[in-house]
């Protein structure tokens, strides 16, 4: 089953992908090459054997998978991989276990860890446009370190029925590393946000899948009010080390509470807009949901789609691993994390009887706003047999996770279905 994988399977996946890539290069004909470059290849027959178009030589980042542990690869070009729930047990998600969501290819600057001459431009609806080096950021603004959840807007897409297009994330496109940087709000205030400001537009230097250097890979933004809250940061470090190549080196935004696509990687420009941003993957169906609830499978007119903003309340069970055997009649700890796009989670409950009765779990406070919160419970399974642990988090407004997928949407965003694991009690 492709959804589940331990280390060995992940390695095997990577091998299979390598094999597929070799096979691909072997069988690629010139007509294909032409299709790839979007044109005929003149004098094709004179090309040396083994010629690989520049578009294909650009790195997908797949080799960097060697530094990840136990992730399930959903796609190799672009590279996307998620983390099985039981590997997300750490309070601070380590690099090895942080999911990967690439929209394009990894830029060479990130692969080389070369930040020489990197400049962040802040322009648009501001009094004083800024050109900031990373040293400028470090010296001019207060450095803050925070644990912030980052979650792909499509996490949980696999549970929508009927299927929705995109990577079929289950529960693992989420993590909570510790980020270091400066507050986005302070940088924007230094530039002087004009009255006319409505939205931010974020830009990075990642490379389009087609290899076309003119083409934007992804450029999303957030309402200016969200950007001016104190939570979002411009980060240069993750877990005390420079940002890894797969996660945005040398600079990225972390805008907690919103889909992770708003947390631009490889950040080199923030443009303040006087209208909702219309960069790549802001428009059409991308990161948008219907303005009203629709029946599963409905095609929604483009003008009725609105930008997905706050992510819903959610929790996962990270221990034990699903399918674990436990002793009947003996207490065992069950635990996980809970988080919410609005900020702190109010409570977490769990059920051992398929949702018929619910018990309160102990919920720890967040070390800072938008960090995930640890929940724990000690459970005793009364007799041998099959059990499931279901968990549900409830936000400050009393809104909790549904036992099945929430309202369907064409691209399968914001699915906060309750997570369940199986436990087998033995006599």
């Amino acid at each position, binding site marked *: 089953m492709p959804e*589940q994988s331990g280390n060995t399977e992940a390695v095997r996946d990577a091998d299979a992908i390598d094999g*597929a890539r070799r096979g*691909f290069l072997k069988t690629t004909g010139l007509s294909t090459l032409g299709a790839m470059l979007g044109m005929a290849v003149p004098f094709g027959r004179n090309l040396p054997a083994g010629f690989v178009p520049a*578009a294909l030589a650009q790195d997908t980042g797949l080799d960097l998978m060697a530094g990840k542990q136990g992730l399930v690869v959903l*796609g190799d070009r672009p590279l996307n991989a998620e983390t099985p729930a039981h590997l997300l047990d750490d309070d601070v998600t380590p690099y090895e276990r942080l999911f990967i969501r690439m929209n394009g290819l990894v830029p060479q600057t990130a692969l080389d860890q070369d930040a020489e001459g990197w400049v962040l431009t802040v322009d648009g609806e501001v009094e004083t446009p800024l050109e900031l080096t990373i040293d400028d950021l470090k010296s001019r603004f207060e450095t803050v370190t925070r644990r912030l959840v980052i979650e792909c807007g499509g996490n949980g897409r696999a549970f929508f029925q009927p299927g929705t297009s995109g990577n079929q994330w289950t529960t693992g496109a989420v993590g909570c590393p510790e980020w270091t940087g400066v507050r986005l709000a302070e940088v924007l205030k230094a530039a002087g946000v004009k009255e006319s400001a409505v939205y931010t537009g974020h830009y990075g230097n990642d490379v*389009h899948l087609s290899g076309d250097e003119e083409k934007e890979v992804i450029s999303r933004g957030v309402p200016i009010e969200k950007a001016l809250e104190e939570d979002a940061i411009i980060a240069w470090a993750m877990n005390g080390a420079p940002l890894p190549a797969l996660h945005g080196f040398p600079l990225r935004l972390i805008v907690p509470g919103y889909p992770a696509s708003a947390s631009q990687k490889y950040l080199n420009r923030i443009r303040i807009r006087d209208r909702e941003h219309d960069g790549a993957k802001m428009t059409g169906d991308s990161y948008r949901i219907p303005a009203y609830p629709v029946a599963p499978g409905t095609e929604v007119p483009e003008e009725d789609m609105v930008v997905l903003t706050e992510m819903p309340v959610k929790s996962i069970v990270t221990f034990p691993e699903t399918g674990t055997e436990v002793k009947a009649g003996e207490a065992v700890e069950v635990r996980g994390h809970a988080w919410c796009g609005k900020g702190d989670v109010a409570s977490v409950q769990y059920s051992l009887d398929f949702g018929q009765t619910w018990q309160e779990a102990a919920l720890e406070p967040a070390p800072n706003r938008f960090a995930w919160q640890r929940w724990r419970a000690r459970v005793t399974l009364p007799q041998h047999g099959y059990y499931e642990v279901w968990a549900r988090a409830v936000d400050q407004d009393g809104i909790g996770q549904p036992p099945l997928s929430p309202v369907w949407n064409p691209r399968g965003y914001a699915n906060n279905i309750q997570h369940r694991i199986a436990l087998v009690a033995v006599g």
Partner: protein
Amino acid sequence: MSRIIKTFAAALAVLVLGTGLVAAEARLDPMSALAGRPAGSHPLDPMTALRARADAGEARAGNEEFGGLPDGAGAEETYYQCVACHSTEIIKQQRVTDHRWDELWRWMVEAQGMAEPDEETKALILAYLKTNFSSER
């Protein structure tokens, strides 16, 4: 009707194998039964969406020469058209409506700069995608 029975049988197989009480190696994960793309589920009867996915246990190996895409009319054309930008992994994950495939094609051409082939090839590729990676059949 035969599809329903087949689906039911597949669901039963998943349940039997999925308990792991007999097979210690089978990984238990109730989420996997929910991560389905059942063919023919009815939007106005939400319980139908609870069925295990129709293709559980039926996964076709696919043709290695074409990135694991299943053989069939249009497999080769689909492979060469798509891998210009992305690998076949993202294709193989999809179970979407015919309409969504048309929309995705339009989006790839208009927003992502995909080079559009001639009409005949386009029709062949879309028919292949709708046949093999569908939520409708």
